[in-house]
Structure formats: C-alpha cells, structure tokens
C-alpha cells in the first residue's frame, strides 16, 4: 500500500517539471520541497491508518525507540525489532512483491565523459601557437554483481592525420570485503598520487597539465601497468591505512608504454603502495610506494643489456581547496645488468592552490614548481632513444569554474631543461569539463 502510493506520487513528481519549465529554478525548488513535504505527510498518514487498523504496536514501538535508553543496554532497537519482526513479515513480502524502489540490476553500465580544448603559445624555437583538441575520454563503470565491478577508460586523442584510440584502463574487480579486493586489468600505475587520483579527467585536476614526472607518454615513471592488483584497508583505526600490491608486465620494450600485448621478458614487475588517510583529517593523505621491474629496451643496446629498475616514491597531500597542497617525490634507480653500472634520478613537484571565497568560490589561483634531475651517466635515460631531460619549471595559473562541471584555466609556464637548452616561456589556456 505504502509502496504503491510512494510510486504514484513519485511518478507525479517526475512528470511535474515538464509543464513548469518556464518557471524559475527557485520556484521549482520550492514547489519540489512542498511536494516532498506533502508526500511525507501523506505517507505518515497512511502508516498511521494502517497501524490503527492492525494493532496498537506502533505507538508502543515509537515510545520505546524515542525514549532515551540506559547506556548499558547496548542495542535496544535490535531487541525491539526482533519482537516486531514477525508482525512485519507480511508487510515486507508485500513490498518485495511490488518490487523495491532501490532495486539493482546487473550489469548496469554507466558512462561519463571528460573533454578539453586547449590553446598554447610559447617562445620555443620552431613551435606554433594555436588551438588543440585535447582528449575526449569515456569512463565506464558497471557493477556485474554486488561484489564484482568493471571499470574502463577509453581515450580519443587528436593526431596529425587521425584520432588515436587507447584503452587507458580496463579493470575487473572482485571484492571480498573492505580489506581485500582483487582486480585484473590495465591500471594507472599506483606509484604516483596524481596518476591514480585524476587519471585522464583534466577537469578533476586544478592545473592544465600533469606534472612532467608522470605525464602521459613520459618515460621517467611507468604510467600504465598491466596485471593484477590486491587492495584494501589495513585495520588501523582512525589512521585509515590502505594498501595496494600489484604484479604485472611492467614496461614494454618502448619504455613509455606498458606490456599490453605480453611482457617483453620473463620477469614480472611488482608494485606495493601504502598510504594513510586519517579519519580526523579529511583531505589529508600521506604515503609511499615501491616499484620493481626489469627493463629490456628496444632498440636493443650494444651487448643487449637489461636494466634492473627500482622506483621509490612518496606523497604528501592536503586535498582541501583552502588551501590545496600536493607534493610528490620519486627516485628511479637503474642498474645495467651487463656492466653493473648504477644510477639514481630524482623528480619532484610541489603544487599550492587556494579557492578564493569571493564570487561564489569560482576562482582558484595556483602555483607549481617541478624539478627533475637525470645524471649524465644514467645508463638508460641519458641515451637518445630513452631520453629523459632535466627540468626546472614554474607554473602559475588561475582556474575559473564556470559551472559545477566545467572550468576555464589560464597558465604561464617557465621551463628550463638542459644547461645548453634555451629557457622557454609559454601561455596556455584550457577549458575542461565532464559530461
């Protein structure tokens, strides 16, 4: 009975906005509130009538539930409901037969999109100013059952002659509980906070671009990882510890890519990350990760050496917007397995932003400093085909959220790479959005 009335009223409510589109948002909101209040009152009335008709149990329960109970009696409501459960079975069955209002269907695919349009102009010799269509990204999420879910991310990127399509992420995850979830697929490697926080959703990130140390197509750290990942909470009370442990193919022969079509050698890469998000400090996160791989580069180098790779990283984040603070550091250790030559390269960035309180909090200025150091004796990154350059870069920008789901960003960037490279200044603009 209650369910039918709810459904009817919900249908009435759902059809209401169509003829009322000419009214203002405020009046619509007030009307919705009035209708909801009316629904609630009607439901209360129906429940009262039903209760009066059946027995006097409702007032008794209300009295027992609402009167403060002694603290020593831990679960009074549980006892109450036990006594009432039998009386409610008939009502429950009726609800079940009518079909629940919150019924879940599997699979249930949901698609969300991200997009951006960019403009850039720099004083770098040989560069051209102009507009570019950034990535169009489709994010897919679909529960396959109550404990199994699929996630996918597909990007369309403009190239000089066509659009390239990439499966950025494709993950199937099996949940046992909050402490153990096992997934298989292609991930953004969890060695870096930015990589696993913002993915390809440029609208999600404050700035126009990613930090250089984790940029798409970059070689300093592997952006993608193909394999399996176990993750979950670590029982740690208010500390909020989370772990991730993965095993996968690691870098492909082209070291900026993951081994999607099979590993390039018989050595699996593995990654482990732990971070803490304390319950008392929402937005705060601190953590670190270790990544181990063996690289078999292509084109092969003289003597066909392989390289052992250890990446250790750490991050410290305050993700609130007043202020927003992001800082990450990574050390990449390479060892030439043929010669035994070792080298360590470092990169870090620090980003600070603040959501201004005026004008409906639409403005957010920001600044980011980035640094990358590659030793000249680095056995892999110093070679032409695998080069990663030094970098000292400052970015100052302003973000304006034109709506809840779209933003404009303006940036000035000053970049200095190698000692003999010229300093580059550039201005960049972007509108990014989700749909």
């Amino acid at each position, binding site marked *: 009975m*209650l*369910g039918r*009335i*709810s459904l009817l*009223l*919900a249908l009435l409510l759902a059809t209401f906005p169509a003829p009322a589109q000419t009214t203002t948002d405020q009046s619509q909101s007030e009307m*919705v*509130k009035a209708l*909801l209040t009316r*629904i*609630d009152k009607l*439901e*209360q009335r129906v*429940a009262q009538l039903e*209760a009066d008709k059946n027995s006097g*149990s409702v007032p*008794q*329960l*209300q009295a027992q*539930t*609402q009167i*403060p109970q002694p*603290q020593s009696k831990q*679960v*009074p*409501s*549980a006892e109450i*409901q036990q006594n*009432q*459960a039998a*009386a*409610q079975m008939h*009502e*429950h069955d009726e609800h079940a037969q009518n079909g*629940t*209002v*919150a019924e*879940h269907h599997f699979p*249930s695919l*949901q698609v*969300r999109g*991200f997009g951006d349009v960019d403009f850039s102009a720099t004083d770098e010799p040989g560069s051209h100013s102009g507009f570019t269509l950034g990535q169009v990204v489709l*994010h897919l*999420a679909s529960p396959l059952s*109550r*404990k199994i879910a699929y*996630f996918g991310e597909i990007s369309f990127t403009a190239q000089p002659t066509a659009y390239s399509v990439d499966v950025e992420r494709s*993950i199937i*995850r099996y*949940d046992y*509980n*909050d402490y153990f979830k096992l997934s298989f697929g292609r991930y953004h490697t969890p060695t870096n906070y930015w990589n696993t926080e*913002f*993915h390809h*959703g440029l609208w*999600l990130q404050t700035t126009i671009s990613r930090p250089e140390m984790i940029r798409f197509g970059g070689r300093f750290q592997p952006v993608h990882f193909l394999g399996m990942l176990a993750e979950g909470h670590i029982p740690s009370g*208010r500390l909020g510890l989370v772990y991730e442990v993965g095993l996968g193919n690691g870098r492909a022969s082209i070291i900026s890519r993951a081994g999607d079509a099979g590993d390039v050698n018989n050595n699996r890469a593995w990654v482990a990350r732990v971070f803490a998000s304390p*319950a008392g400090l929402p937005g705060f996160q601190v953590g670190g990760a270790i990544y181990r791989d063996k690289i078999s580069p292509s084109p092969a180098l003289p003597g066909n050496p392989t390289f052992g790779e250890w990446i250790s990283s750490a991050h410290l984040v305050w993700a609130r917007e007043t202020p927003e603070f992001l800082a990450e550091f990574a050390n990449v250790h390479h060892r030439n397995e043929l010669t035994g030559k070792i080298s360590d390269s470092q990169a870090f960035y620090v980003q600070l932003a603040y959501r201004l309180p005026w004008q409906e909090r639409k403005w957010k200025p920001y600044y980011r400093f980035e640094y990358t150091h590659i030793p000249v004796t680095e056995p892999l990154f110093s070679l032409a085909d695998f080069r990663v350059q030094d970098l000292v870069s400052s970015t100052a920008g302003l973000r304006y959220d034109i709506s*809840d*789901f779209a933003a404009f960003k303006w940036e000035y960037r000053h970049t200095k790479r190698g000692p003999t490279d010229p300093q580059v200044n550039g201005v960049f603009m972007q509108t990014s959005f989700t749909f």
Partner: protein
Amino acid sequence: MRKATKLGARLAIATALGLVCFSQEAVERASRQDVAVIVNPKNPAGSLTLAELTKIYRGERQYWKTNLPIVVLFRNGGSYEREVLLHTVFKMTEPQYKQYWVSKIMRAEVTAPPTELFSSGMTKEGVVTIPGAIGCISASDIRSGMKVLRIDGHLPGEPGYPLH
C-alpha cells in the same frame, strides 16, 4: 529615585529580551528534527560512530562486518534528511557532493553514487527489502519493525545525538 526607576526599567527590558531570545532558541532547538539512521532488521549492527557513518556514506567503507555489501540510500535534493547529512556527515555543499562522486567513480572506487529516493517511504521500503541497506529518515517517520542505529551511543531524541 528617578535613576532607580530608569535602572529598573532597563533591567526589565533586558530580562524580557533575554526571555524572548531564550524562548526563540528553545523553539528553534525543538524544530530541529533528528534524522534517524535505519538498517535492515536482519542487520546485526546496532550502533555506529559518526566517523563510521561518515565513511559509509562517503563510500570509504563498503562492507558490513559480515562482508555484506552496504547499499547506501540517500534522499533526493531539497529534502531535510539530505540537508542534514550533507552538513553533518559529508560536510559538503550540493555541488561539492556531486563533484565528489564524479571523482570517486573516476578513481574506480565505486560504480555509482548512493541511490537517491524521493520519499521517506521509499527509503523505508528500500531498507526493508535490501539486506545491506542503510538509510536516513526523519525521526518522526520511525515506525514499527525498523531498526534504528545508535550514533555515537545515542538514539534520535536523546541529548548528544549528532544528526539534526
């Protein structure tokens, strides 16, 4: 004598103003309806801390201790229950709430935001029919057979109850 009369009058006015303010505050306090947290009657949980409730509603905790998936039911925009939870549990504005779930789904932490329902009746029905469901209704809507959780050790209507 005149000074004493003036002082007395001022005291009387101040007392009257104080009484008016006190009564207004009492009326406001009484009008702040508590929001009850209800779960399926078969759910063994009897109480939660506000921190645990926050984790559940924010999708950071997704399973009950029995490994049963938690199904969070949330009221639609404009409802009193939603306003209370946005303020006390999420500590977010409505746009921030929407952006929060876009981000969370993008991170592959959840597949969808909490199911939004249009009335307390729908919430009650959802909680009754879905084993792992949790929902919030106005305390005046509590009926027989519902399992109301203590939050931080308090039931709705008790002093110290945090959801109102």
